[in-house]
């Protein structure tokens, strides 16, 4: 069953993330893909994440397919204009990629090529409309395509954005523009996630909760202070502190596993997306502890 079939038939999905290398040596990425094969439904391949130049997402997705895992093509609008985006999407489809996650993309000032010209010819909502059009056999100008795409279209949402209402309006616009599934920014507060879901459930879209493993109380504080749209509740920080340095990571893995279990059992969301950020090898352990493999 594909990622799309699973989500659309109401089954719980698990996705993870892999970043293409900075360079041509794909061994580490392949290792991560192999580690996750059979344990997750799809792997997001990041698109020059944090505006750091790497191998492109499209190639990463093809490699992912070669190693037997379904990829989710992350596509940002930072580096390509509307011609480049559409052209890459057609190529992606022809190469067997079926899921695309549309994002605006981190600003170049966050990355390692700060003098690059940020493109943003269109942005996330515009890109969603473009992919919807390609699915109907039309390019952005309405020209007919010889062979159309049939992408499963995804987008991102930040349930902990502050203020929240403009973010929710944008979420609605993304749905209008064709998004069928959403992956969220990292969430840590299950009660607040439920609150967001009460809003999101008005719409016929699938929501996959984003999870980032906490390695320590220090990391949790760092996220709270520095990363927009992430809020780690104090009780989790206390739990990590109480665990002490040696057991902090293990506690962090337990917290993520516990959240996954709760999201699954209480059917809070339609799946989980684990962003391991350098700890891809821990994903199987988390899933085991969550009782999902």
């Amino acid at each position, binding site marked *: 069953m594909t990622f799309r079939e699973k989500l659309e038939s109401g089954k719980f999905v698990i996705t993870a993330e892999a970043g293409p290398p900075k360079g041509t040596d794909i061994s580490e990425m392949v290792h991560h893909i192999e580690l996750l094969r059979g344990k997750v439904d799809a792997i997001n391949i990041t698109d020059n994440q944090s505006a750091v130049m790497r191998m492109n997402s499209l190639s990463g997705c093809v490699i992912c397919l070669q190693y037997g895992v379904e990829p989710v093509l992350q596509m940002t609008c930072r580096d390509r204009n509307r011609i480049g985006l559409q052209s890459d999407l057609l190529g992606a489809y022809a190469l067997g990629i079926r899921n695309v996650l549309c994002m605006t993309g981190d600003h170049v000032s966050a990355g390692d090529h700060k003098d690059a010209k940020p493109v943003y*010819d269109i942005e996330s909502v515009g890109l969603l409309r473009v992919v919807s059009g390609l699915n109907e056999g039309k390019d952005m100008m309405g020209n007919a395509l010889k062979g159309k795409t049939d992408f499963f279209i995804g987008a991102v949402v930040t349930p902990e954005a502050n203020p929240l209402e403009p973010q929710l309006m944008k979420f609605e616009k993304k749905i209008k523009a064709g998004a069928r599934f959403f992956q969220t920014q990292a969430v840590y507060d299950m009660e607040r996630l439920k609150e967001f879901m009460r809003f999101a459930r008005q719409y016929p879209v699938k929501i996959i909760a984003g999870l980032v493993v906490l390695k320590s109380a220090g990391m949790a504080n760092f996220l709270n202070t520095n990363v*927009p749209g992430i809020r780690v509740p104090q009780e989790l920080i206390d739990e990590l502190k109480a665990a002490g340095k040696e057991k902090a990571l293990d506690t962090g893995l337990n917290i993520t596993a516990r959240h996954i279990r709760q999201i699954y059992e209480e059917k809070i969301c339609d799946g989980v997306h684990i962003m391991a950020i350098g700890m891809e090898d821990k994903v199987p352990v988390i899933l085991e502890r969550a009782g999902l493999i």
Partner: protein
Amino acid sequence: MIITKKKDFQELYENIKGYKSFFLLGCSECATLCGTGGEPELKEMKEALESLGREVTGTFVAKTGCQVLGTKVELKPFKEAIDKAECIIVLSCGAGTQTAVELYEDKPVYPANDSMFLGNMTRLQMFDERCSLCGKCILDKTGGICPLTTCPKGLLHGPCGGMKDGHCEVSPELQCAWVRIYERMKRLNKLDELRNLMMEPKEWSQSQKPRRQYEKKEKTKK
């Protein structure tokens, strides 16, 4: 107005060190307000050049340096001083510099300033960019605040995931353009309008360079 800043003198000097005599041209409009091309700056430049053993044959602050014909007429009385100068230094924006290039085909012309953006002066010599001159105004849809200019990503449908407590991730000292638009539309009781707004992809063809506006002439022709 067009916001300019002075180039580092050393950078300018590298360009002009081979010349012995100069005519200095400023502008009474934007460059004067920016403190980059009015009387005081011309005086300062004159003194700097003279202290390096160079001759300044004359200085003039044009009324509107980007107005080619007007500037040409204004500069007529300075013909002798300009003829005597080996080089012209323009203390205004890039448009003013290119007026001088057009008027003095045989003379080298160098800019003393960097031209930055179309800005609003919020306080004395404090400037903010609020309009990008994109050629197709969308302020009618966004509560009079331009997200194309005041959001680093030029977003058209709302804040990005980088918005933090109402502020911009790229320039944390700035309020998020989309939070400002949201707040304003809320104040104007127009949140529904904002909620239903789907913006068409930007028509970048409207800002294809070089831009020209010859409407009056074209009308006369007809």
